[in-house]
Structure formats: C-alpha cells, structure tokens
C-alpha cells in the first residue's frame, strides 16, 4: 500500500507548483512562509514536487526525504526530515532548472529600481544571493536570489521571488536587519552548510508579476578589494551560457534572447568586501544609466 500524500499549491512569479509530501510538517512550514503569496486556487500547476521516504519503511525510522517530481535527477541524495523545507525548495528549483521553457533561466539574483533590473551572477560564494537580500532592505525591489527569468521576446526580466535562501554567515547578517517573523527554521549542517529561509519584503511579493528591463549585469566576487573591471563580450556570453540551465534546451529562442541580452546590457565584474562597498560601486554605475 502506498503511503498517503498531502499536498499544497504555491505560485511564485509565473510558475505554479504542487508540493506533495508523505509528511505534513514540511508543508505546514511552507504554508506559513508562503502565506503572503497568492494561492493558485482553482488553477492547474506547471510542476509537481514529491517528498517521499527514501524506502517505504524509512517513513518512521530515521526518516529521510527523497526529492522527486515531474523532473528529477537519478542521483539526488536524500535529506533528513528536519531539512524537509530545504528539500521542497530544492525540488522546486529542480523543476524550474530542468523543465521551465517560457524564459531563459539565468542562475542569477536580481533587484529592481525605477523599472530597471540589476542582474547579478557568478559562482556560488560570489555573494550574489546575499547582495540581493541586502539591497532589498535598502530601497530596491527584490526579484529573486536564485533564477533571473529572461523573457524570450521582450528581453525583460520576470521576477521569481521565492524564499531567500540564506547560507552560513549571511544568516547572522540578515538577522541583524530583518524582523524575526520573516525567518524560517534554522537548518544546521545541510549539504550546503547552515541554511535559513527568509520571506522577501512585501513589495517583492505584491509585485511578483511585474517585469523589469535589465539595465546592468554584474559578476560580483566577495572578499577582494573593491574594484570594477570591464569584461569582453565573448567571455560574458560563455559565462552566461554556463549560468543558464536551459540555454541549450531552448534552441534558437535561447540563442536570440541571450545574444540580445549581451548586446543591450552593460556589464562589469565587481570585487567587494562589504555591502557598503558594493552599494557604493553599484550606485556609481546605476545613476548615469539611461
């Protein structure tokens, strides 16, 4: 007999998900953290994520969560049950990364001001996620910390403001400035280190269907003396194809969207050691923009 599953639906930006789980707890946590988001009532979803026991009998003994769903990886390692919330978020990311085709997906964070978007991409550890969370507390609208969705026809960036996934030192930094009721449970020693989820500011959620024109692309690098450097177009193009999970899958549409983005959007590599330095560098680049 198959274990009964519970499920909830979530809508984040243009994408709708059904999260099905053998356990109620991760769903309760999600429901609480996503309570400000509009529910996709009476609507179908784009993807189903499944959280289930790795083996049927492991539902009760040392339960561990296997992440499955419409799109899945054969070698995805299970997580302990108290990291069920993280499993759900990873499951949603996986559906987007492998299944979303309505935008070019860039592994990047983005924030907006005056209808224009600042897009930040780079390897993990570059600080792009923390930067977007910090800037969102300093007058920018948060659009997403994981994926920037580049429109295939208009060239605009569509928000995907899921919960902000704070890691390690970023947790303390954000706890100093954001109120406690916006935080999810702290998860210690996950495969990605310590993780704590943060609900984005209210305007990020209210305006999650509002796109913005990309005006600046940064490749931030944390821990080096503040500096802005130019980058060649060929390098930018290659790094963006590496930062995209669906560039190849989109074929010609992806090529057209990405070449247009590289042609239209000014780019800088940015080194920084603190949020204040980063903000100063960004402001200097931002104010002369058309």
């Amino acid at each position, binding site marked *: 007999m198959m274990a009964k599953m519970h499920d909830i639906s979530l809508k984040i930006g243009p994408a709708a998900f059904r999260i099905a789980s053998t356990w109620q707890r991760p769903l309760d946590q999600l429901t609480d953290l996503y309570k400000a988001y509009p529910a996709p009532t009476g609507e179908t979803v784009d993807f189903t994520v499944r959280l289930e026991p790795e083996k049927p009998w492991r539902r009760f003994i040392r339960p561990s969560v296997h992440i499955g769903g419409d799109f899945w990886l054969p070698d995805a390692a299970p997580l302990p049950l108290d990291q069920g919330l993280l499993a759900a978020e990873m499951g949603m990311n996986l559906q987007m990364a492998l299944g979303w085709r309505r935008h070019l997906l860039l592994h990047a964070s983005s924030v907006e001001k005056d209808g224009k978007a600042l897009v930040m991409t780079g390897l993990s550890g570059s600080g792009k996620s923390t930067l977007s969370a910090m800037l969102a507390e300093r007058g920018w609208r948060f659009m997403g910390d994981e994926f920037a969705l580049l429109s295939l026809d208009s060239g605009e960036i569509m928000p995907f403001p899921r919960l902000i996934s704070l890691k390690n030192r970023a947790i303390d930094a954000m706890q100093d400035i954001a109120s406690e009721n916006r935080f999810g449970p702290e998860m210690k020693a996950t495969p990605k280190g310590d993780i704590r989820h943060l609900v984005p500011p209210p305007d990020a959620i209210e305006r999650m269907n509002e796109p913005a024109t990309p005006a600046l692309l940064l490749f931030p690098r944390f821990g080096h003396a503040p500096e802005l450097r130019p980058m*060649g*177009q*060929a390098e930018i*193009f*290659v790094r963006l*194809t590496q930062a995209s999970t669906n560039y*190849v899958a989109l*074929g*010609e549409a992806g*090529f*057209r969207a990405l*070449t247009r983005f*590289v042609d239209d959007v000014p780019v800088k590599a940015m080194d920084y050691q603190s949020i204040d330095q980063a903000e100063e560098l960004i402001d200097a680049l931002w104010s002369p923009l058309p």
Partner: protein
Amino acid sequence: MTQKYRAAAKDDLIWHDLDSMTLLYHRPSGITHMLADPAPAILEVMNEAVLSTVEIAERLSARFDLESNIDTENIVLARLEELSRLGLVAPVPA
C-alpha cells in the same frame, strides 16, 4: 583528385558578432559555435558553392587583405578539417 567542400546551408545558420569572436547558431544541431577568424570568413566566402581549398584561398585573397607571406591554403585546409568535424562543412564526393 582534388577534394571539394560545401558549407552548411545559409538558412541553417544564424550569425552574431561579439567583440572578439563570432557566434554561429547551427539550426539542425541546436549547437552554438564560437568561431575565431578566419573560420567565419571561410564559411562566408564558400557561400554554398562546391569549392577546393585553392578556390577558397583565392576567394579569401580577393575579399580580404591577406598578408602575402602566409600559407593561406594550409590554413584553409586546417580550418576546413575542424569545420567538417563540427558538421559545418562537408566534403563533397567528386
């Protein structure tokens, strides 16, 4: 017997210039190629005709200001072999 070559059909290719390289999206494969000179120029002068390396070298010399002391034919041959492996150029049986 001289080996002749033909480039991929024009309709199968989408070109895009970057500052230092040329992007080429190849529709039948869905692959994006990043080409350095003179590969884009070679494909351009071939223009769907069936040509030998000598003929391609002549067309290049006519279109571009090439240095006189370089071995154009061998450079063309080497690039043609690379482009053949990528499926952007095909050797044509005599």
